[in-house]
């Protein structure tokens, strides 16, 4: 499973606060992988699902491999 963050991210920081083991902020508060994606380890799938549901911009999507 991949977690994708599109350019609509405005830096609310909900994702990296909820899942610091997956995501982190840059110097402005945007998630570092804004406009990109990461592979989600098997044991963090539920967390990734919560992360997708916490973004007020709806900028996070999960894509099954």
């Amino acid at each position, binding site marked *: 499973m991949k977690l994708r963050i599109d350019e609509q991210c*405005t830096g*609310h920081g*909900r994702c990296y606060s909820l899942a610091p083991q997956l995501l982190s*902020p840059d*110097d402005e508060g945007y998630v570092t992988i804004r406009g990109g994606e990461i592979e989600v380890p098997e044991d963090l799938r539920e967390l990734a699902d*919560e992360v997708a549901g916490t973004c*007020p911009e*709806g900028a996070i999507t999960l894509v099954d491999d």
Partner: protein
Amino acid sequence: MESSVATDPRQTDGGGCPVMHHDFSKQANLGGYWALANELREACPHFYNKYTADNGYWVFTRYDTVQDIYKTPEVFSSESITPWEPNPIYRFVPTQIDAPDHIKYRRILNPWFSPTAMESAAPTIREICRSYIEPLVSRGHCEFVNDFALLYPTAAFLNVIGVPTHFTQLFAGWVEDFFRGFGGDPAGLEKMSTALSEMRVFWTEQLDDRRKNPGKDGDLFCYLMKADFDGHPIDNDVMLDMCTVLTLAGVDTTRGELSYMFHHLALHPEDRHRLINEPELTPLAVEEVLRYYTIIFGDGRKVTRDIEFHGVQLRKGDMVYGLVSGANRDPRHWEQADEFVIDRKRNNHFGFASGPHRCLGMHLARREMTIATEEWLKLIPDFGLATDTQLLERGGGSMMALDTLPLRWEVGS
């Protein structure tokens, strides 16, 4: 907050929408505005709010429509964010600036208020917070709003931008006066205007001081004066506008949220105990406060072109109001929409708005709320309401805030 639904909604100029006549500037009983938002949202997805014979604005009441307003800034301009005042006497920068300049200002300001910057500021914010709680502990009671919620965020904010915290009382007064007029109550306009003028004089003096003493460094004024906007320094008037909005937004909002959060904690010992035993939940509890007890009744925008939006024909120049309080408790979007779920995780609320204008100070506000909860529960773990009388909240047009919150606790408990 009397309302009437017109028998013929077409008496307005825009097709099939109910017409109502609400004044959102009026004081209400605590929780009155969330109850009203629930009622409006369930009555209709949108309506026309006519506040004078000639003026009105469209209100969109549900999560999906509020989200679409936020997601379409090219249609919904931030030129005015108060639908009852399409041409306000103030100009907030960057709040009321649209693309393409908006993001340039935001990219200058973002680093100053970033999570990393707030992490560095946290130890000082915690000290400031404790300095306001400690004198209260042995008293056994306080009026939470005036003794704590007005002062602590003001002092914390001034510290973050580099203004000495002995100005706290002065700023708290200006911010109070400004919001008397902001929400649409004509009786408050004079105080609002005076507060704006006095603040502007203060900022002018600060900027002049930095120009005369170029050796000074490390505060927001120096930072803004050195900032690059399209190859030029930021215009002086724009800097004054920025300082004003940062202050208004940075001080009053956190006071409002803190008052509702501590009202909740006073009434819910089980939640207090949960946060004492599981302090790692505090950030989630803060987010739930921002959803369930959002102080944002609604958020205004000005329509930039004729467009049909969710079945409503909008015209260029129309004002719209996204009912954030309706969206944040919309059962079409939320599970347990009308319950406070302290460890809610899928919490994509609009308490800090959404889209390019999302709250610049959100990382500071969260940090202040989290620290206030942690420190208060360490020093005063058990407390309750100290009154049986009805508590009142400021009108939603200015963002809700409790007028007073009397608390009491056993000394030595």
